[in-house]
């Protein structure tokens, strides 16, 4: 919403300066977004110098000029004027500016094959005189003004732009802003001028609101003005329109716009002679087409509100008018519409058609239903004073009455909400000035809500009104108490925090990537999960919710490789989506490691490097290593031979995966995933009490074994067998070599391990040791068909 101080002065009698008003507006919730010098219709036109006026290569009568437009910029402009010559100072119109003479908006265009950036102007084009022969010639005094606007701005006022929150449609008119300022003692709201309009003619044009289902139009007021002399607007009106950032069109159109921004009362003017027989406000018919004033054709469905005549739609109620019945400069007889349209239906319609307009912006927020007549009056008064004409009596069709809202208000709620006692009279005065009518009802008040405030529903809204005007600065800040009733983090959150820092401490850089991903990348990792599509994605590369952290991590790892970083360890901790319902998500920690190809062989990372990172993280998360069970089954995005999963022995909970990623997805890249919820589940099911520590001081002995086993037998099989033989004696098993090749039959491998044997009760003698060794060999041979390697 834009306005100027001198416009505000029409409604507010105040001695306050512009800067004070700006501060106050911020303080009462009307946020000032921008303050800009006022623009007039000539602001865009700047002083420029023709450096070189060359002949146009394809046209004898045209010139192709190199023009200095200041700020070290030189542009090419095609010009037909005879007087365009080297060194001439003149006035330049940049692309986007509007030529006052014909209202044409300049665009970059090709003239006879040469691109022209803007135009050099004659006096008549700028309406400075009727002189249309040749371009303007400025004298040398203007040499230092190149690039600056030629027409100095006589209006010292600024345009103040407010960002009005959607609850305050009343402040989409200057009068509403004035009312708010008056409420905080920033001046007095002036009474609206009593207009004396001579409405002697009969309103003899039929207007009817159809009784359709979901009729958006509650009431439709209109008046007819005959024999007008539509013209260009007078200077004061043009300046108002320009201040709004709009383009003056004609007195009739400018006046309807002016009333809308002045009183927040949208109006529409029809050329009466173009309306066939009558006006009927009805629901649109499916397939009807409206050619609107924005030059677009809109195809309507059957839920929209149209203003129509016997030929069809004339406009979309509350949104935009149609070209067919639009007023023109030679229009003689007009019909002015002042109506009320339902906010919701208006909004739905505009959304469906992707259509925005100043009227729609207001109707969808809620217009004062009682402003129909005053709007017609304001418009009729201005039109007759500028264009003449005779005004008819007003015709008001009503379909639905708007209800007056009354609220019970207990002023003590103000104190309860802000913590400080406030003077009752002050509270009542503020509400009064904002237009509320209060009636005492015992200890409380019955408050009538003004019709221009559709945002007020209950008591708390009144509290807000009072506090807003009193000023939030006046609320005393209360120091927070430092006591805790609940732990800050819950069990799960503590593990999240620990996992994050644990992985980072192992050389991984934490990333935060989108929760969405490219469907094509995600497909590699979704396994059995059904793709979760976003109906309206921001781009086709981010069109699904991710089913794994890998696709995004790999995508960005690839980007870093392109930036020249071959060695990378990245990780992310965050949501992975397994369904489209709220809560169907799990938290995964995913690490990814890649190494450049030019490291020495012995330094090359392998699967055991990534396994180390995973295992150590799990240990740091508080899971005993002896509780791990490694399986070689992993999701399909891992290398089927070089990957594993870790389960807990108790409860069989899957803690995570590790391995090389499948070569069809990416080359030589290792990764791990941790399923955080399962860690937390496991830990909450196991006791925190550690097993009591028993250590033996008797001598321990190590015995080495090398078994030749089938290739498919894995190390864990052997250690499981051995450790289960005698837990009281076998204290530790360490694998120290795995060998295939010479001296080992094909299809077999040798696993060498060291077993630590120790008793808690005595020093074992040679016989004891031989005994247990025999048991080890026998069990292993028996259970997996191994042979002790001699």
């Amino acid at each position, binding site marked *: 919403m834009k306005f100027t101080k001198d416009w505000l002065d029409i409604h507010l009698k105040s001695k306050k300066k512009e800067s004070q008003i700006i501060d106050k507006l*911020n303080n009462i*919730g009307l*946020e000032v977004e921008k303050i800009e010098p006022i623009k007039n219709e000539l602001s865009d036109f700047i002083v420029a110098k023709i450096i070189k006026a060359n002949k146009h290569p394809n046209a004898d009568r045209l010139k192709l000029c190199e023009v200095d437009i200041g700020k070290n910029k030189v542009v090419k402009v095609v010009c037909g004027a005879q007087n365009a010559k080297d060194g001439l100072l003149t006035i330049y119109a940049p692309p986007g500016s509007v030529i006052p003479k014909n209202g044409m908006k300049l665009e970059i265009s090709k003239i006879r094959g040469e691109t022209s950036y803007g135009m050099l102007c004659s006096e008549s084009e700028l309406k400075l005189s009727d002189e249309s022969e040749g371009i303007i010639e400025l004298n040398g005094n203007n040499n230092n003004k190149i690039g600056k606007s030629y027409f100095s701005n006589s209006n010292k006022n600024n345009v103040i732009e407010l960002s009005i*929150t*959607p609850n*305050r449609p009343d402040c989409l008119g200057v009068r509403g802003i004035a009312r708010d300022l008056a409420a905080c003692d920033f001046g007095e709201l002036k009474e609206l001028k009593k207009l004396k309009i001579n409405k002697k003619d009969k309103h003899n044009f039929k207007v009817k609101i159809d009784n359709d289902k979901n009729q958006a139009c509650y009431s439709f007021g209109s008046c007819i003005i005959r024999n007008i002399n539509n013209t260009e607007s007078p200077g004061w009106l043009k300046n108002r329109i320009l201040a709004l950032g709009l383009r003056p069109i004609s007195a009739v159109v400018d006046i309807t716009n002016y009333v809308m921004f002045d009183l927040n009362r949208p109006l529409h003017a029809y050329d009466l002679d173009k309306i066939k027989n009558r006006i009927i406000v009805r629901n649109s018919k499916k397939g009807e087409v409206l050619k609107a004033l924005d030059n677009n054709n809109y195809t309507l469905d059957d839920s929209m509100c149209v203003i129509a005549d016997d030929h069809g739609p004339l406009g979309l109620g509350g949104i935009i008018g149609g070209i067919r019945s639009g007023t023109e400069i030679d229009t003689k007889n007009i019909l002015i519409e002042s109506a009320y349209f339902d906010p*919701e239906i208006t*909004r*739905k319609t505009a959304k469906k058609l992707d259509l925005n307009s100043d009227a729609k912006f207001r109707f969808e927020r809620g217009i004062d239903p009682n402003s129909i007549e005053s709007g017609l009056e304001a418009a009729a008064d201005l039109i007759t004073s500028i264009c003449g004409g005779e005004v008819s009596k007003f015709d008001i069709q009503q379909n639905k009455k708007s209800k007056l809202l009354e609220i019970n208000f207990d002023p003590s709620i103000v104190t*309860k*909400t*802000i*913590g400080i006692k406030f003077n009752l009279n002050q509270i009542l005065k503020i509400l009064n000035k904002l237009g509320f009518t209060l009636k005492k009802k015992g200890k409380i008040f019955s408050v009538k809500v003004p019709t221009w405030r559709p945002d007020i529903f209950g008591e*708390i809204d009144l509290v*807000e009104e009072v506090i807003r005007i009193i000023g*939030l600065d006046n*609320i*005393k*800040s*209360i*120091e*927070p108490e430092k006591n*805790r*009733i*609940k732990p*800050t*983090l819950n069990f799960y*959150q503590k593990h999240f925090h620990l996992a*994050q*820092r644990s*992985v*980072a401490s*192992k*050389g*991984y*850089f*934490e*990333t935060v*990537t*989108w*929760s*969405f991903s490219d469907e094509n990348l995600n497909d590699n990792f979704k396994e059995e999960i059904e793709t979760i599509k976003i109906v*309206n994605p*921001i*781009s086709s590369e981010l069109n699904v919710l991710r089913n794994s952290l890998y696709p995004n*991590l790999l995508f*960005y790892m690839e*980007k*870093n490789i392109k*930036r020249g*970083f071959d060695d*990378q*360890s*990245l990780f992310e901790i965050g*949501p992975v*989506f397994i369904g*489209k319902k*709220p809560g*169907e*998500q799990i938290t995964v920690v995913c690490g990814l490691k890649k190494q450049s190809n030019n490291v020495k062989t012995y330094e090359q990372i392998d699967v055991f490097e990534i396994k180390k990172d995973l295992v150590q993280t799990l240990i740091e998360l508080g899971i005993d290593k002896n509780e791990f069970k490694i399986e070689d089954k992993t999701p399909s995005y891992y290398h089927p031979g070089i990957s594993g999963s870790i389960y807990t022995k108790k409860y069989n909970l899957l803690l995570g995966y590790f391995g090389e990623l499948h070569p069809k997805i990416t080359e030589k890249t290792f990764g791990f995933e941790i399923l955080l919820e399962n860690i937390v589940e496991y830990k909450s099911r196991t006791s925190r009490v550690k097993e009591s520590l028993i250590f033996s001081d008797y001598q321990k002995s190590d015995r080495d074994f090398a078994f030749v086993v089938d290739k498919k037998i894995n190390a864990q099989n052997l250690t499981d067998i051995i450790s289960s033989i005698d837990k009281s004696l076998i204290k530790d098993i360490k694998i120290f070599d795995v060998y295939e090749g010479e001296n080992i039959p094909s299809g077999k491998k040798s696993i060498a391990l060291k077993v630590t044997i120790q008793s808690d009760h005595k020093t074992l003698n040679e016989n004891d040791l031989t005994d247990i060794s025999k048991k080890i060999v026998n069990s292993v041979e028996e259970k997996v068909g191994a042979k002790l390697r001699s």
Partner: protein
Amino acid sequence: MSDFEKKVQEFKNKLDQVQDVKLVETIRAEIFGKNGFINQEFKKIGNLSADEKKNLASSVNKAKQDLQDLIRSKENKLLNKELNEKLEKEKIDVTLPEKEFKIGKIHPVSQVIDEISCIFSEIGFSVEEGPDVENDYNNFTALNTPENHPAKDMHDTFYLDKNMKTLLRTHTSPVQVRTMLKGKPPFKIIAPGRTYRSDSDQTHTPMFHQLEGLHIDKNVNMGHLKGCLNYFIKEFFEVKKIKMRFRPSHFPFTEPSAEVDIGYRIENNKIVIGEGDKWLEILGCGMVHPNVLKNCKVDTKIYQGFAFGIGIDRLAMLKYGINDLRSFFECDYRWLNHYGFDPLDVPTNYRGLSR
């Protein structure tokens, strides 16, 4: 000087001059060997009278002791010298670079979430979370955002179904709803998390992070709201004083609503928070709307309170001088390394928020 004494002196001289440990060994053999000097001398004792015996024995013993000491010290000296020479040869250029230690980094967003949690922990808030996918009710309806209201324009929502019932939450406020529905007042929570809006330009990303705050109890009023936010902002930016301004605003879920600006100025192209005559909007807040409390089964006759929402990414940008929001999500290795935090740098209330 007797022959014996001469001989002893000879050995002493020899030992004095020797420069090689191996030669010391030879001399030792000459003196202490089976047929060495000392044994030879002791053998002589047998033929002597008792008195002479005593005299000779004592002088031989003394000489033995002296020579032993001398050999030991000489040996030590020579060994030391040898070692020092060896060590001298091993001297390396210690200005060569150290071996690389690979420690990872914590993302600034995670770090800032931890800092925030730490601050609010001090004043009794606990951390709550909610799902990223929400239903329309929790995200809008329960929060008093009517259907087809322009307020919904403020949120360009990503939907997961054509009926617009399931969506990616546009703010962390649905956590308020979930928290209140599952528990009983008082509530004193913060909820950090990912949020999503269909918006992408210089200053907007389709995903960003928000922090929700909610405090509901008997008699919690706007004075508490101001005090709480003032405390938070001061602690977060680690400054003693902060210039703050509360401006009335509008959110469907709070009434009265306010936006909070903090003062700042630009010094040497860097932002200085807390002072200066420029204002920066950093958060929205207000008293929880009675309709929201009713939707969440909280008795508005007894309970009231405040809520606030802050952009976490923006806080991180301000505190750590990061200019581009989009860079948070681009995973550039250089960026992560530069703006990331040491994982050991855990914000705590006893050691402080940042190093």
